[in-house]
């Protein structure tokens, strides 16, 4: 099945996963690229997006698998035609004839911006680095079946902090993204629960790259 790599930036980050699926289905139609439909009582266009993205999270490495009906169209043309039918903030970066099975997807590189409106507290960088160097760190995880505790340390492959400016401290982390997966926002939740005085005024998250088990780029 062909695969598209796309990014979700700007205000498009507020489009939910389900809405994004609908948006792509319509974009394919507008682009004159008919999708095959699932069989059955209620046929649906075959598009699927790996690793549903939380609302508000930016990404430069989203994968969309789809299946076109009719004559084959060159990948570059699919890419161009889709982009002219998409909205601002959703942009296809490349289309591949086929992709590696999603089950081999293992890690995610992300950036988390911690914004401190009155300046980054002096102790912040060291304290946060130390926090994530602990042998274990349980954070409450909200799920449909109530809240559970989750030790996030085993799911952090690597992590570093970088001061962007006076107000913005950046976390760059490589985390597990499948079986089990760590929502990068949990890193902020850990700060808020263990270092409440270092809770940022605002934080935002961005997916930078996805990788396989061997930590090479996944497509």
């Amino acid at each position, binding site marked *: 099945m062909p695969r598209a790599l796309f990014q979700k930036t700007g205000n498009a980050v*507020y489009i939910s996963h*389900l809405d994004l699926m609908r948006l792509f289905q319509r974009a394919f139609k507008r682009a004159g690229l*008919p999708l095959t439909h699932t069989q059955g009582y209620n046929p649906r266009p075959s598009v699927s997006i790996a690793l549903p993205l939380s609302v*508000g999270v930016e990404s430069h490495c989203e994968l969309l698998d789809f299946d076109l009906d009719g004559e084959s169209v060159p990948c570059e043309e699919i890419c161009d035609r889709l982009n002219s039918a998409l909205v601002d903030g959703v942009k296809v970066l490349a289309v591949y004839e086929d992709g590696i099975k999603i089950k081999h997807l293992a890690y995610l590189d992300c950036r988390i911006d911690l914004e401190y409106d009155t300046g980054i507290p002096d102790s912040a960088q060291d304290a946060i680095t130390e926090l994530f160097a602990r042998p274990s760190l349980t954070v409450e995880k909200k799920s449909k079946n109530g809240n559970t505790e989750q030790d996030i340390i085993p799911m952090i492959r690597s992590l570093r902090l970088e001061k962007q400016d006076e107000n913005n401290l950046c976390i760059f982390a490589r985390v597990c993204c499948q079986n089990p997966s760590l929502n990068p926002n949990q890193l902020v939740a850990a700060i808020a629960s263990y270092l409440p005085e270092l809770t940022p005024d605002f934080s935002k998250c961005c997916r930078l790259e996805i990788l396989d088990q061997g930590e090479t780029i996944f497509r």
Partner: protein
Amino acid sequence: MTELLQRILPTVQKPARYIGGEYNEIIKDPAQIRVQVAFCFPDTYEIGMSNVGMRILYGVMNEMDGVWCQRVFAPWGDMESAMRQHNLPLWALESKQPVKDFDMIAFTVGYEMCYSNILNMLDLAGIPLYANQRTGLKNIVFAGGVCAFNPEPLADFIDFFSLGEGEESTVEIVSLYDRAKAESWTKEQFLLEVSKIPGVYVPSFYRHEYKEDGTLAAIVLENGAPKTVTKRIVEDLDNAYWPTKMIVPSTEIVHDRANLEVFRGCIRGCRFCQAGFSCRPVRKKSPDVLYRQAVETMVDSGHNEITLSSLSTSDYRGLKELTDRMIPYCEANHINLSVPSLRADNFSVELMHKLQTVRKSGLTFAPEAGTQRLRDVINKNLSEEEILTTCANAFSGGWNNVKLYFMLGLPTETDEDVLGIAELVYKVIQTWKEKASNKKRGLRVHVATAYFVPKPHTPFQWEKQITPEEYLRRCRLLKSHFYSKSIEYNYHGPDLSRLEAVFARGDRRLGAVIAEAMKNGARLDGWDEYFNYAKWFDAFNTCGIDPNFYTVRGYGEEEILPWDTIDVGISKKFLLKERKRAYEETATPDCRENCAGCGAACLLKEVSCDA
């Protein structure tokens, strides 16, 4: 640092409705713009973006050179709290500019229960609520939509109303504003000139005087205002503007599909129905034009569903021709064609089979009343036999789901009529037992009753609304006669319909009530999550206004009615005649069978009524 709105958005429900940026959104260069119009829909994005009228006028205004029309919707409660907490004023989706920066502020008003939203949106925008507090030409507030057919409850807040279909009049209004702004007119000068545009009603040019009993004593004209203002219509729909490049929302809306209006007006004359009278005369669109617009819309939007809309689509003469052409196109392109508002006739059943849409939605009938006698009173030409025959057809075709809609509190209604609903429902169940081809899953009959609201410009505009207590008694009476497990009965609570009745036939004195209720926190009244009758009850008390005056009292035929200034083309003589026929239990044939002389044909100059 991340700006304020971007910090708020992740914390609210469904943030995608606040960001704009959808496919086909219109962005213009502000440097080229002379008139900025903030087009406000007084409800949420999901409701407003489903409104065809708004889409038409958005397109119409944006076709104008030097004019940029942008959309504004009411925020949900969580967003409103955040906006108030951070002093973030209401903005338009396209440019994110505050509404306060716009020249003209337009509202489309389709439902009485959004009146609090209009005031709340002005307040969130930081614009004075009362028309007389806004002294300049900037921020002029105007409104249209079906509620403008009785604009009086909003008269204190809205500078002028645009009555009827706006494709042409909106261009005239905005062009006049363009000139007024260029020539630095005062607001007074502009209102005087705009009142000369046919279809424009300037409420401040009319002084309402009341008698001691609270009814109107006189409507005094000022500034040379016309005695009546006649609504505008578009005569030639084939050549009228129709937006085939529609905004495609990036988030799910209520009617998440393309929409094609097949004709305007209605030939039916149901005596309770405001749209049925106020949208006359009947004007058609040709199947050729519709097919072309349908394909253009589908290709451009990428929607997987299109709906044919009108007040009664079965009455569209070209329906067979149009659907015969559309069905193959839709099937080839994986598009659902949905045709709501079909009557229970043979062709409709055949069509529903072809479309397969019934499978999803089930059959829906709106007999409105339980006995033939009462259906004759309200002129709902749907017989028991038609309902049962259609049900029999559908049940034998494998369908097991029926929805039946009724009203309680209709004029002359007795307990016998109420129980007639139960009898009809049992006949439907009996029909299923006899005809169903697939009984494994059982039958579901959804019955819903609404509380009758008398509306202006209908033969029932003088009628009493029954008391809420009596309405609830009738609901319970009906409920006690439903024994079958197949029946699911829902009835609307009375409070909302009672308020709707107050404002539908309300006068100018209600402006104070709306302002007070809004101050008490009334908003999003159309939503169960927010509607709170106590806020309104307190507002009535504070303002010393008795809601019963507008509901259970009934209006006298000799009374001056608050909406007497507004002419929708239907003569009062005709409405009175129809009212008399209702009490005589006499049905009036549909307009196609025999023109009843409602008067709406007088609005036409180039074509004749297509009833």
